[in-house]
């Protein structure tokens, strides 16, 4: 049977992708950011997931305002890197896992989550930057990826509690898939940042640290944070943190933190990264 072995959360800042693509990772500004992922690259090489369910948000790339799905699961064979206005990132095409993706879609819909099934979707920096941070610059991604796009652009986004419960439903789905697969779930975005208006540049280290602590210790408490508190305490784009709760909901209550990294700034954003392992 398939099982979820671990969860990873990471920010997905576009400038980080640009720094990798343009060979700037050794510049003094960027060095501390990439140093924070050295452990993670070794860790993932040892743990070799077969499939990653990658929770992210689209940034007006695949979805405009014409159609705004709250939860969209990518069931295609492959996903092209999106052209976000300056050409697609020079990264490998993302290979999907249609059988498991469809299985998760069916199982979660029957569990009363109204998923949108997507068979054609370009994936933007929200999905490809975490892959680059964890795997570097391979000729092909060493893992199959099931994109799960969450709306955090148009208000209201899903509540933290809804995300937490969706994570639990995803776990149930994965564990009922009849093939031995090592599955990981990643939650991306965050941490505190604000890109818009006179308050742009907002960062809240204290809130972020508490959030990282509670991710292992009190995820149910995190699931109760209302949207207005995210915007007030983590900046308008800090709302992306609700996506981390999907990751957390899919793991054991007793999941163990094996790595943590936090750094300010990368461009406008606080970088937060954590690795949680399920008990074997």
């Amino acid at each position, binding site marked *: 049977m398939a099982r979820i072995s671990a969860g990873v959360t990471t920010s997905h800042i*576009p*400038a980080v992708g640009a720094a990798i693509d343009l060979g700037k990772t050794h510049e003094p500004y960027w060095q501390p950011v990439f140093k924070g992922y050295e452990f993670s690259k070794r860790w993932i090489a040892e743990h070799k997931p077969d499939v990653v369910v990658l929770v992210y948000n689209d*940034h*007006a*790339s695949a979805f*405009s*305002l*014409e159609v705004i799905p709250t939860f969209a699961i990518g069931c295609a064979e492959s996903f092209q890197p999106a*052209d*976000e*206005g*300056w050409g697609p990132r020079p990264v490998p095409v993302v290979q999907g896992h249609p059988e498991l993706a469809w299985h998760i879609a069916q199982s979660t819909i029957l569990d009363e989550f109204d998923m949108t099934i997507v068979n054609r979707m370009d994936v933007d920096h929200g999905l490809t930057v975490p892959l680059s941070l964890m795997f570097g610059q391979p000729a092909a991604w060493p893992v199959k990826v099931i994109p799960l796009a969450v709306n955090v*652009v*148009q*208000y*209201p986004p899903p509540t933290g509690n809804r995300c937490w419960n969706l994570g639990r439903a995803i776990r149930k789905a994965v564990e009922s898939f009849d093939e031995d697969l090592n599955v990981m779930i990643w939650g991306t975005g965050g941490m*505190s940042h*604000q*890109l*818009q*208006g*006179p*308050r*742009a*540049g*907002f*960062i*809240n*280290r*204290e*809130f972020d640290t508490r959030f990282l602590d509670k991710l292992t210790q009190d995820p149910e408490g995190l699931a109760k944070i209302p*949207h*207005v508190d995210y*915007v*007030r*305490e983590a900046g*308008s*784009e800090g709302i992306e943190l609700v996506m981390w709760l999907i990751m957390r909901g899919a793991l054991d209550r007793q999941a163990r933190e094996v790595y943590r990294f936090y750094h*300010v*700034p990368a*461009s*406008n954003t*606080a970088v937060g990264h954590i690795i949680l392992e399920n008990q074997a």
Partner: protein
Amino acid sequence: MKHYNEAFKDIPGTTVFDAEQSRIGYHLNMFCMSLMKAENRAAFKADERAYLERFPMTPEQRQAVLDRDYNRMIGLGGNIYFLAKIGATDGFSFQNLASKMTGVPEDQYKAMMVAGGRPPKGNRSKSDPGK
């Protein structure tokens, strides 16, 4: 629902992209979305006013685009992820847009970020001291 939307209005310097903003900003944001295509970026650069006429935006929205007044565009329903496509077309980074929206020179904005960013103190609520 009214209470949900109202609660965000106490947060200084922030516009939440709610149903009302999305409704009034639809055509402005869809104009931005059109800049995802290279041929549209070229047409916009060749004649901005003529290109903007293709979209049923309000005169205020068109003027705010021509002025590159991002805070005004946000006030008129623009969403930052869509507006960033204008910045990309102009060849500017997100930090450059942030410096425009916060009204400080870009080097000063960058220095603020390196020093830890804009602090929460005094920036949580419109009723914070000094707001």
